[in-house]
């Protein structure tokens, strides 16, 4: 397998950054990590996950859709879309890599969302296998193997070298473009690392979490469950879980009057917010219970119902560590699966 020694990783980054924009996860002062545009000297984070997920690159928190010029009774629509530049996102974990499959099902289904597709076409996802899963990880529940990540190019580290394998054409082009820096390497140590990670995966507290009780056919059973009241009673109705989630894709479309034209933009929205479904004549989800239920029903029941059983969660564990009151999808699943 092709590899590069860990010491030479900076050279690799430099070589990629010369050709296209490169984003890598890097540590912040407060210990969290986030994706940043690569600049010389930047160090790859050793953290498991970035604070915000990699969905931001393809579905940013705010983006302009169109501009309008209003003059008297006339309206002019200005298409502001431009072909995106090529970019590489390096170090995406297996869970986040799977999130793109889920987002694709939403945005690339008919009618295709050209804003998302544009970035998807121009972005190369380079994944990195996990070696140190956290207690909040439950990707295996959704059939994700963190030692065999998806993505255009998959990478593995055995501590000494980083190994590369292209999964797609785009990925192959990426590997070819840096092949000068890569050499053939022996994977014995890597196989050991993988085996060790797999062993740890089995020991994680959430290793036995199962999706068996969920899916499109369980709609009414879960919707009517009495457990929602207790589960949602302490929910603050903030949007933390939705905004750090790699698969949450609900959005709002808004207009902003700049004083010299109208900008129509879309921004992330959260089903946890009270005005999410508010209309002039009323609101169909008036209580936090209904809004809370919507979020989890969407991930565990509605999404699989519409997408051949695929769940709308990848088990990255971000909502578990970021919820201000520590209510999360795992607690919901465990509560609901008990008959």
């Amino acid at each position, binding site marked *: 397998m092709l590899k590069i020694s860990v010491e030479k990783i900076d050279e690799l980054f430099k070589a990629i950054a010369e050709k296209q924009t490169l984003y890598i996860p890097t540590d912040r002062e407060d210990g969290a990590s986030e994706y940043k545009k690569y600049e010389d000297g930047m160090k790859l984070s050793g953290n498991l996950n970035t604070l915000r997920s990699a969905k931001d690159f393809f579905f940013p928190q705010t983006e302009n859709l169109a501009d309008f010029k209003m003059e008297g009774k006339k309206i002019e629509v200005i298409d502001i879309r431009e072909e995106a530049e090529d970019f590489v996102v390096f170090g995406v974990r297996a869970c986040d890599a799977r999130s793109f499959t889920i987002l694709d099902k939403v945005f690339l289904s008919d009618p295709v969302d050209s804003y998302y597709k544009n970035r998807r076409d121009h972005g190369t996802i380079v994944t990195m296998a996990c070696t140190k899963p956290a207690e909040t990880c439950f990707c295996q529940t959704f059939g994700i193997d963190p030692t065999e990540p998806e993505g255009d190019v998959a990478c593995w580290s055995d501590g000494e070298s980083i190994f590369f394998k292209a999964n797609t054409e785009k990925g192959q082009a990426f590997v070819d473009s840096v092949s000068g820096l890569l050499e053939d390497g022996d994977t014995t140590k890597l196989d050991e690392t993988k085996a060790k990670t797999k062993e740890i995966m089995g020991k994680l507290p959430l290793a036995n979490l199962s999706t068996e009780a969920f899916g499109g056919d369980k709609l009414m059973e879960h919707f009517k469950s009495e457990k929602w009241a207790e589960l949602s009673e302490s929910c603050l109705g903030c949007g933390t879980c939705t905004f750090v989630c790699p698969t949450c894709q609900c959005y709002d479309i808004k207009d902003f009057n*700049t*004083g010299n034209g109208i900008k129509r933009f879309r921004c992330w929205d959260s089903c946890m917010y009270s005005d999410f479904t508010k209309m002039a004549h009323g609101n169909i989800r008036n209580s936090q219970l209904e809004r809370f239920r919507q979020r989890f029903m969407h991930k565990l029941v509605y999404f699989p119902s519409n997408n051949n059983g695929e769940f709308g969660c990848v088990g990255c564990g971000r909502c578990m560590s970021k919820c201000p009151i520590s209510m999360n999808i795992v607690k919901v699943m465990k509560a609901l699966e008990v008959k």
Partner: protein
Amino acid sequence: MQVNDNKEFQPLIVAFCCNWCSYAGADLSGTNRLNYPTNVKIIRVPCSCRVNPMFILRAFQRGADGVILCGCHPGDCHYTSGNYFTRRRMTLLFSMLDFLGIERDRTRVEWVSAAEGAKFAATMNEFTEAVKKLGPNRRLEDLRCRKQ
């Protein structure tokens, strides 16, 4: 209306003026033919304490380079005590803006009575000069609203 010399920066000043004193003061400065910059845009408010911190921020968002709030002199408020509340609020707000690194000379509170036409004109001239020195507002502007 706006005479803009491209070479020299002309700050846009928003002046919130209370209906009972400062707005009349501005009127008086006009009838007395006193000069103050044309880029001062007056917004009349019923009382200086009608001005909510949001008004100040929104003025900056929409392109103001400086915001000044004028009201009756303390003790002379038409509603007895409105300007006393204004004084506390604006002190705290301006202090917060300063804390966030927004240039402190972009904001000001001035008490102008209905008889002080000359003070109004002088204040506006002086404030405009002070803001002009700072240059365009960049730290609290909304890029979307910048004139192309």
